[in-house]
């Protein structure tokens, strides 16, 4: 009964204040502050994609189709934030950077893609497409890839390019739909619906840590057809780290599980790792 009243209270106050106040401080919940939607979105984005100045991880993907047939991808991913020093740590200890990043993905398996390298310069600016390169070692070929569709499969998995490198929060309108014991529940609608396959998506963001624990994508009929779930997390070097996550195709029944291992932050990966030099000569000291 207490909980019911609390819920009614929260929702009613949300309704009441939507008309009166800017949604800066939404409501009170048992005496705790509820941050603004913007802050939730920003902090969730940071927890999901921007921890540490750089990082490396070994990734194992299991791709299971609707008939249970399994494929795998193994790669090492290196990441470096392209942060000018002044943007870093404006307030002591508070790293608020959510800007451009560079990714280097070195494939270790399956055998036919071994030693292939995929490199991305991610640009947060909406009008600038990401730069993407692929290095094919058998041909010694550095190939440039058109980056227009970020919502297509990443290496044949159920994850999209955008799930791996992060979707720009600026592309969506965000609304705090609910606050539960554990979660902030966000409803997100695309500003340009023609560019994406979903009509909206819902995120469950852990209140204490701002980790997005689940994301569901809905089609025009309001039917959920795609679901991302975090299944296991660890705290490494004081950064909350997803160790296993799952992306499900709710229509076909297929799914992909990603497991991370040997995750390290603030490794000190130099910026020139993300250049043609290291496409052709992989930096094995960061990879093995």
């Amino acid at each position, binding site marked *: 009964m207490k909980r019911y009243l609390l819920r*009614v*209270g*929260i*929702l*009613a*106050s949300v309704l*009441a*204040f939507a008309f009166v*106040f800017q949604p800066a401080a939404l409501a*009170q919940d048992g005496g705790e502050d509820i941050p603004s939607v913007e802050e939730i979105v920003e902090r969730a984005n940071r927890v999901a994609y921007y921890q540490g100045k750089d990082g490396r991880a070994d990734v194992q993907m299991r*791709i299971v189709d609707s008939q249970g*047939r399994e*494929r*795998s991808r193994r790669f090492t991913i290196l990441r470096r934030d392209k942060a000018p020093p002044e943007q870093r740590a404006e307030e002591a200890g508070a790293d608020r950077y959510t800007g451009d990043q560079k990714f280097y993905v070195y494939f270790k*398996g*399956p*055998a*036919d893609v*071994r030693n292939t390298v995929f490199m991305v310069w991610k640009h947060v600016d909406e009008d600038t*497409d990401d*730069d993407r390169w692929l290095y*094919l070692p*058998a*041909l*010694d070929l*550095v190939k*440039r890839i*058109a*980056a*227009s569709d970020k*919502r*297509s*499969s990443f290496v*044949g998995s159920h994850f999209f390019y955008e799930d791996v490198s992060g979707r720009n929060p600026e592309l969506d309108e965000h609304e705090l739909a*609910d606050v*539960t*014991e*554990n*979660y902030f*529940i966000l409803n997100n609608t695309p500003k340009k619906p023609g560019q994406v396959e979903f009509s909206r998506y819902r995120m469950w963001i*852990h209140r204490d840590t701002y*980790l997005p*624990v*689940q994301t*569901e994508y809905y089609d025009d009929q309001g039917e959920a057809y795609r679901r991302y779930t975090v*299944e*296991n*997390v*660890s*705290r490494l070097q004081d950064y909350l780290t997803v*160790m*296993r996550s*799952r992306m499900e195709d709710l229509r076909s029944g297929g799914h992909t*599980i990603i497991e991370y291992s040997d*995750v390290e932050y603030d490794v000190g990966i130099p910026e020139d790792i993300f*250049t*043609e*030099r290291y496409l052709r*000569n992989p930096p*094995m000291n960061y990879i093995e």
Partner: protein
Amino acid sequence: MFKTLRKQQHRAAAAAIFFIILFASSMAAAQGPALPDGLGEKKQQDQETGPALPSGIDSGGEKQESSGPGLPSGLGEDQGVPEPGDDDSLAGVREPMKWRMPKSVKGYAEIRGGMRIHDDPVHDDASLAEARLQLSWDKRIAEYLPRGRFKATGDLIFDATVSDHDDADIEEGTGLFDLREFSVSFTPLDFVDIRAGRQILTWGTGNLVFLNDMFPKDYQSFFLGRDLEYLKAPSDAIRASFYTDIVNLEIIYTPRFDSDRFVDGSRLSFYDPASQTMRGEDNPMDVRLPDDWFGDDEIAMRVYRNMEGYELAAYGYQGFWKSPAGSDSVTGERIFPELSVLGASIRGTLGEGIANAEFAWYDSRDDREGDDPFVENSQWRFLAGYEQELVTNFTMGVQYYVEYMIDHDAYKDNLPAGFPARDRARQWLTLDLTQTLMAQDQLVLSLFTFYSLDENDFYLRPGVDYEFTDEWKFRAGANIFTGNRTDFFGRFEESSNVYAAVRYSF
């Protein structure tokens, strides 16, 4: 200031909550437990969209019902944060025990067969019938050389269409063994990389069209329908790369000329306009290769830099035409005249796709005036291309390419009577279509088309790739040439073929 504002808001919120709760409970008391419209709907929606708890996951709180997913392990309030090592769920991912090659040896086994689709007066119907085993060994040798790495890749080939397997030549890659790579790379200084030995080398911006890439190509493999990786033949060279903040410089020295593995008639027949005959197994081209160590050497250079995603490069080359580009007027042997190349390229994002442009000046040093009919004229070459993913999983690339003879008048004036004169320009359009299909991109349909604007001849490369599993792959495709027998592509018409291959990678 914001704090006071927030406090005021909090106070107002508390007041509103109090008021609304009062209002709601009085309503409830008066009319029973029905909820106000808006709230009721909200709650219902919540139940519809609230996901069921994934199995095997501990929920962090007990009071979650329809309010969201269970917390993942590691996020629960009452549990200690697990160490990455003691996560038992990883056990399920471990691959089953099976026999394996030593970890650093990888490769594939493949069978590939091809058929000619026209009656070739010179060759059998079978164009390709080969079993291939590629083994590749990749070893870090950082303990001996800074950032050292050793790589060796070799192919064992049994080809049933070739009668004489003794004719092995490691340089030309004929015979039972083709050594693709045998190289050592290391970083003697922070800003210098060296790679020495047999290696595959590629640069430039074209898609299957090469202007400044003067490294050997294997057009025979390409036209026969071998895997695309065999378009590049290995070089025996030393590559030194220097990296600075302003530009990067690469110098590749090949002490003895490495020619293309060009179509000479031995595997694929074609009409040879120079001799005005069909070349085939029984009368392949007679060639004379420059083959003096350090005398007939090649040097290739590239200066490049990436400016905010735009790749700029300038190129230089001194060596020889890579495929026969002249003939000895006495012996009739085909020769590789001296050649220098200077060029430049740019590549970057344009609109929603990738644009590239490249030009090259081919200085045919043995025919500077252009009046030697037996040596290729000097040329300008230019390429412009654009590639874009038009709709999800469907990519289209177009290229325009032109080869322009610099001394065409001199060439025409000195052409012996009876020889058909070439046009001043040779222009191609290429169209590359790729469609990826099925949920996990297992099926790829592709079509690469070369079309000659001046001669109206075509070269079509349709292909189907299918992945059965991570290990087993299937490919079928065709090389179809149409046009007049004197045209650039048309002369290969009799060699048009279809092929299929199954590959097991390990």
